[in-house]
């Protein structure tokens, strides 16, 4: 009470006109029942926050079903589908490559050394020089491959080798 008296006395001294105004009539109004409904409105606003807090603390360990259900959410489902597709495509290509390899191995098992030599001889141009000179890679039996007598060899040299050398301007 003393505080109010002090405030009014102070006001009267500084501002006599202002001190005469009825300050209880401020002119402000509020919607009908505003203050009556405000607490419920505010409490309703707080409830979701409370529930979220509670659920966050009580369900710290989600069950397997929750975890599986979470995988069905769009963002996880897309990622999961991508991973599954990649794995399927990858496994398909891997198995195809494996089949090819086993086929070629099977094929090699049925070919004799003589057939291989024949093939190499017929397609000698297709093999790189380095490959042919690698002893371990290509084993060539010169005795069986070049079955020439001295005159045939002489003829070969004259016809083939000398001709080649001439073409290359070595002679």
């Amino acid at each position, binding site marked *: 009470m003393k505080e109010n008296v002090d405030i009014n006395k102070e006001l009267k001294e*500084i501002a006599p006109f202002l001190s005469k105004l009825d300050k209880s009539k401020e002119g402000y109004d509020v919607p009908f029942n505003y203050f009556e409904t405000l607490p419920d409105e505010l409490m309703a606003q707080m409830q979701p926050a409370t529930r979220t807090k509670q659920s966050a603390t009580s369900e710290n360990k989600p069950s397997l079903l929750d975890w599986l259900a979470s995988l069905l959410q769009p963002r996880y489902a897309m990622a999961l589908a991508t991973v599954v597709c990649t794995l399927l495509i990858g496994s398909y290509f891997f198995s195809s490559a494996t089949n090819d390899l086993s086929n070629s191995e099977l094929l090699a098992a049925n070919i004799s050394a003589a057939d291989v030599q024949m093939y190499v001889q017929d397609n000698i141009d297709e093999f790189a020089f380095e490959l042919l000179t690698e002893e371990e890679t290509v084993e060539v039996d010169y005795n069986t491959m070049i079955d020439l007598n001295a005159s045939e060899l002489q003829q070969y040299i004259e016809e083939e080798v000398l001709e080649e050398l001439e073409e290359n301007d070595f002679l």
Partner: protein
Amino acid sequence: MIKTPRNTENDQQLTNLLKNSATVNEGFRLLIEQYKERLYWHIRRLVNNHEDTNDVLQNVFVKVYKNIKNFKGTSKLYTWLYRIATNEAITLINKNKKRTTEDIDDPDHGVAAALSADPYFDGDEIVLKLKAAIEQLPEKQKLVFNMRYYDEFTYKEISEILETSVGGLKASYHHAVKKIEAILIEKE
């Protein structure tokens, strides 16, 4: 007009309820009941219209609810509440200032026109003049004037809420009252 009876004993009980997770909702409802009108009028005098006041008041209570755990109790509960309310109201005023272009030649015209058009304002001519005069004050003087003139806070209480010196507040209030008196007499 709602006066501001400060019942610190009651505030202490409220704080205890709010700090306990088992009683926080009960405490919060009591807090709303106890402070809804006081804080509403404090904010309304600063922002003037009901819609903005309602927005600010709701923000204040949401902030209180979220931050009650951080309330150390070093200041009084009502001091803390009024400080939050004041800060929120000033934040909204500054936001509105940036949005609207005010009439430089007649700065009180905007407030008077807005209040006249406000369905939740039915003040007479002298009240309108007083509100327009208050609006011409610098922010701090307006705040101090409202808290002293309408809320009837002591200087000490205002200094605790605004965290400023009593001497500075007395000077602000005297300046504010003198300016308002001069404006009102001039317009009579």
